[in-house]
């Protein structure tokens, strides 16, 4: 059996072979935040949802906001990487894996948020036992499960050749990598099957990803509540999801690049290209938001207007305008300008702004519509409790920790795909460009 010639890409194995003290300190801090979350959760299990800030009529708050937010982030990965693969975007090679891992991991936390929100988490299996197919929440269960399955397969398939490399290059962890490599040798027959399977999964995963966030939006849109019952919610949520997803990839890439010194693999051009995508999504997000609010404003139905005004000039207005600035103004200014977009800090700053803005957007969809019910009700306004904030912090910390652990077990930049790009794609792209053009003379064969 011939060993894959790894060449200069051997440096991609370095994070897996050696773990420094900084990593352990970092992991320790994240673990501590996670344990704090466990404490918060046991408090909630003991005393019920009374430990949250929820009330009548704001029955949903931070947990549902985080659910929508995390499921949104999950569109980072698989969807973007599938689109880039299918469109033969050659610059994808060193970023697809980093994106796909985000999807798989963050989905667990998205589903976790729903469990946190249940009054009776012990009865969650009733959803399978007596599922009601008219409930959008059940559609969610189905499509998120499907998405998790598909995106796990989609992460694993391109990982197989890299696991085989690890099996051959890191003998002391052979017991771990050998079974996962499924006897990969890199034979042309195997490669053909793998490429085919990846291509099929890339096609399958796109409609599933779109269905996931559409269905999440329908949880709201299928009710008659003001400013939830909207026909554009499906596409609006999908756009927001891809938007926050791309921002998440950019942030993750910047951290990986810095921590593992992968400057040669994650170049400013990658950030620039993702920055252009982020700019497009920012404009789309603005378009959808503007269309939604202008339509509501012109319709002027009192029940809708009461929510509308609470967002634009009432008690939610500081959050609303922060959202508008951080989802649109800041990213637009940073990304429309070549000078800032072509720097890594420019795209990262825009991405952080987008993440904050998109979390606020989710919050502003969930809470204001519930805060002003159609029939008057005297109730205090909702402010999340320490339990809810702690669990958000713990989920983010555990997500980062699991992501970091992944980078310690598997190469976060796909070795074989970068290798393939170097060996074959340069010629392939030349041939492809030639095929587009009419007047190229046929190459002369001797």
């Amino acid at each position, binding site marked *: 059996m011939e060993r894959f010639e790894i060449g200069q890409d051997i440096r991609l194995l370095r994070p897996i072979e050696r773990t420094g003290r900084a990593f352990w300190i970092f992991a320790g801090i994240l673990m501590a935040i996670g344990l704090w979350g466990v404490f918060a959760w046991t408090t909630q299990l003991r005393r019920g949802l009374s430990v949250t800030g929820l009330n009548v*009529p704001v*029955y949903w708050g931070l947990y549902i906001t985080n659910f929508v937010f995390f499921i949104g982030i999950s569109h980072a990965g698989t969807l973007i990487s599938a689109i880039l693969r299918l469109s033969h975007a050659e610059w994808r090679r060193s970023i697809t894996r980093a994106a796909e891992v985000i999807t798989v991991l963050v989905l667990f936390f998205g589903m976790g948020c729903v469990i946190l929100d249940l*009054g009776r988490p012990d*009865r969650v299996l009733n*959803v399978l036992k007596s*599922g*009601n197919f008219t409930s*959008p929440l059940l559609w969610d269960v189905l499509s998120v499960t499907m998405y998790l399955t598909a995106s796990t397969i989609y992460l694993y398939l391109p990982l197989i050749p890299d696991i085989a490399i690890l099996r051959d290059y890191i003998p002391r962890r052979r017991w771990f990598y050998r079974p996962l490599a499924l006897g990969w040798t890199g034979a042309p027959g195997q490669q053909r099957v793998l490429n085919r399977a990846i291509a099929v999964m890339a096609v399958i995963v796109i409609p599933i990803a779109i269905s996931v966030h559409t269905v999440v939006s329908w949880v709201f849109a299928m*009710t008659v509540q003001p400013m939830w019952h909207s026909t554009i919610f499906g596409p609006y949520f999908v756009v927001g999801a891809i938007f926050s997803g791309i921002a998440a990839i950019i942030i993750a890439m910047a951290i990986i690049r810095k921590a593992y010194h992968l400057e040669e693999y994650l170049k400013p051009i990658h950030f620039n290209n993702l920055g252009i995508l982020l700019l497009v999504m920012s404009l789309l997000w603005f378009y959808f938001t503007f269309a939604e609010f202008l339509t509501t404003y012109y319709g002027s139905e009192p029940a809708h207007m009461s929510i509308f005004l609470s967002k634009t000039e009432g008690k939610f207005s500081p959050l609303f305008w922060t959202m508008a600035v951080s989802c649109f103004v800041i990213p637009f200014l940073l990304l429309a300008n070549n000078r800032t977009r072509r720097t890594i800090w420019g795209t990262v700053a825009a991405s952080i702004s987008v993440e904050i803005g998109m979390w606020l957007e989710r919050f502003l969809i969930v809470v204001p519509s519930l805060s002003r019910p159609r029939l008057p009700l005297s109730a*205090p306004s909702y402010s999340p409790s320490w339990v809810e904030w702690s669990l958000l912090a713990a989920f983010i910390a555990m997500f980062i920790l699991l992501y970091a652990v992944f980078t310690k077990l598997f190469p976060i930049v796909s070795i074989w795909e970068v290798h393939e790009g170097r060996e074959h794609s340069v010629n392939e792209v030349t041939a492809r460009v030639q095929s587009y053009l009419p007047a190229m003379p046929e190459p002369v064969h001797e």
Partner: protein
Amino acid sequence: MAIDLDRCTACQACVVACQVENNVSPAGAEQWEEGRAISWLRLVPFQDGEHGTRPDLRLMPLPCMHCQRPPCTKVCPVKATQIDREGLVAQVYPRCIGCRYCTTACPYTVRHFNWTQPQWPRPMEQALSPDVSVRPTGVVEKCTFCHHRLQRAKDNARMEGRALREGDYVPACVETCPAEAMVFGDLDDPASAVTRLSQSPRAFRLLEDLGTEPKVIYLSKGESGGKV
């Protein structure tokens, strides 16, 4: 159910009767401050008065509307709330997972969630109604139109070998109302008092334009009927 707002004095006897009948634990000041008090029947303010005159602020009792097309039942992921054969919207406490989708979907905000274990000050815990189960923490509950009374009335009718008659069963709120503002009966029976009242020119249903088809009918004179 028909509620005549021109007779209602907003005395809240119905609210108290409901609370006692259905083992709803009395909420303390803390629960009211947190906005977590459970009341299956509450009074809602609305404005009354002709256009151009000084409006009166009045109160209307608000039980579950038992909609014919309820927005709550179709969103429940586990079929824990369903419309039963009598047309009542029922809640299955042992199955409810506490996701509170029904509470957010209900445009009347009449569904309640059990944030904590219900508690009764001594000796009230010895006076609980044996016909009604005490709901556990973490599930949703709401007005049942005193469904347990319907069960009992049906049993009695069966023992006497006859069909259910008008007046065999009324919910506790209706029974209590000192102003006789609340009337209860079978809306499917063309001869019943509620059917007659539902055809009155004073009759309206709450948030009728949402198409939920409530089975609670309000009666009020004047053009402001239905405006909240």
